């Protein structure tokens, strides 16, 4: 019989949700350090991310893994707070991401946020239909190394261009790399908007960030 933490890891990675939640609960109830349980979850997420990258897993698995992590996190959180909080985890770098103005789509952006997060980046997701001025304010405050602009509709081509132009006008363009993605985005759109790169899936975003800021 494998030890419970290994079983938890495999249950999450293999999408056995009920078993994963039961194992996490019994570990926490049995006095296991909640930070160790979350560390197991993080390792499991790496496996999920790897399987996604290798084309074995797709959206259903990413969403379900995210929900398992959320539920186990909710169980562990009060216990961590009781113990005086968690030590800060060192992250590779900051990424600010949002869907450009006029566009309300968020599935692709959420998946990119998830994949960047589990790959060790500090990601701030500022939502959908984000006006240009809000991007500028958020960038000033958060000081990201990478900005990700998401958009599904064709109107997003112009919204992305306006956002990037405004970043340049605010004198911040050379402080960051800008990646765009979603729906119809391709090299023609990248060149039109003035972004540094584009990606067609969440792994492309991770690869771009690795190339730019390590990790």
């Amino acid at each position, binding site marked *: 019989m494998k030890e419970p933490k290994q079983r938890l890891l495999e249950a999450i990675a293999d999408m056995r949700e009920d078993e994963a939640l039961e194992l996490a609960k019994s570990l926490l109830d049995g006095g296991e350090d909640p930070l160790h349980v979350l560390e197991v979850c993080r390792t499991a997420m790496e496996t999920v991310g790897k399987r996604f990258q290798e084309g074995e*897993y797709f*959206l*259903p698995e990413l969403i379900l893994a995210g929900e398992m992590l959320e539920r186990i996190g909710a169980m562990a959180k009060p216990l961590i707070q009781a113990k005086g909080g968690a030590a800060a985890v060192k992250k590779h770098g900051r990424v600010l991401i949002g869907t450009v103005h006029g566009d*309300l789509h968020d599935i692709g952006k959420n998946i990119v946020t998830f994949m960047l997060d589990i790959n060790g980046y500090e990601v701030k997701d500022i939502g959908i239909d984000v006006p240009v001025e809000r991007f500028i304010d958020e960038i000033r405050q958060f000081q990201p190394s990478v900005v990700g602009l998401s958009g599904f509709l064709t109107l997003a*081509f*112009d919204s992305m261009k306006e956002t990037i132009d405004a970043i340049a006008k605010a004198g911040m363009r050379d402080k960051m790399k800008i990646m765009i993605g979603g729906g*119809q985005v391709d090299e*023609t*759109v990248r060149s039109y908007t003035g972004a540094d790169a584009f990606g067609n899936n969440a792994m492309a975003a991770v690869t771009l960030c690795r190339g730019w800021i390590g990790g």
Partner: protein
Amino acid sequence: MGANEQNLVSEKLRRVLDAVALKRPDRVPVAFHTMLWYARYGGTTMREVMYNYELAAELGKRAILEFDPDLFCAPHQFTTLGRVLEAARFKQLQWPGHGVGENQPYQYLDREYMKAEEYDEYLFDPTGFWLSKYMPRVLGCAEGLESLHALPGYFYMRLVMGMRTFANPKVVEALRAMREAGEEANRLVVLQNEFVRDMEGRGYVLAQGAVSIAPFDLVGDYMRGARGILTDLYRRPDKVLAACDKAIPFILKAAIGTARAMGSRFVFIPIHWAPDGFMSLDKFKTFWWPGFRKVLLGLIEADLVPVPLWEADCTSRLETIADIPPGKAIYWFERTDLARAKSVLSGVACLRGNVSPSLLNTGTPEQVDAACRDLIENIGRDGGFILDGAFGIPDEAPVENVRAMFKAARKYGG
């Protein structure tokens, strides 16, 4: 209709039907399909073309006469929906003046419209569920239907007394508001039919007599929402399959009835959940394809021509979706490489597409011309091909680029 126009009817329809039958037509047919591009074409706002029936019809007619496509869609089908949406108080969409700006396209709101625990209710009685749960959730005008009694429990004198349900003020108000929405929809349909008959009289072929849906997309997009359907694949896979199966006869009945009433054989089916990146091929073959294949076969059986628009990139699905009778459907691809699609689907389905929106929106007429030439020469060479944008004409495309696409069909298509 004059003799010349009669000839045009047969000429354009013959051209399209030859392409569907995988023959080589006299030239590659070209389709005109758009949603809100009329605003750009007419120098007005998206809200205006969504609400102003006369203006949208005038712009639609002007565009069709200018570009002279083989297949056309009426602006009443995807554009002038504002008044009906407003009368129905439709909750699944935001449109200009209702959640988005005057010059922004309408957008769907991905939400959970059927809860996970309601699968059984839908499976037991789809009509009852639709009337008293689903419609009140998505149509503001139908909210009072929540108070409807479950009528099959009433009988004999109880059924007579059960008519009280239709005197319930909430139900009375819902029926009044629904009638108003229905009358607005009727006004739109009358104008649509006038427009369609006018264009058909001039030789153009209506690109879609009905709009339909894949069963998985119905359950996924319009009932469970993205997060719901994706997790259901693990949490309640049997329910997903049962709901898809349950929906098929309703989907077919609606599509066949509408297409026949329109006198058109083409059924447009935007496809949402098929793309490569969404689920594994294994899950696609289990959950998505079998239900949709039944819809395709049902439409073909009714002598209709299904026109699924395979959104995004569906390259890994090509071998699977090739399993339909040959020469009976148009497969319109958005981002799937048509050369690859042709290598798999040659002898199976007529291909349609796919000038990229990035090119149509941001390129030059010369670039559009070159891309069309490339498609016509490489994909259309042996027939079985219809030129179109990847998703028709994008809302923001400059007119000169659109013009270039239709000119190219004539220059290189023969």
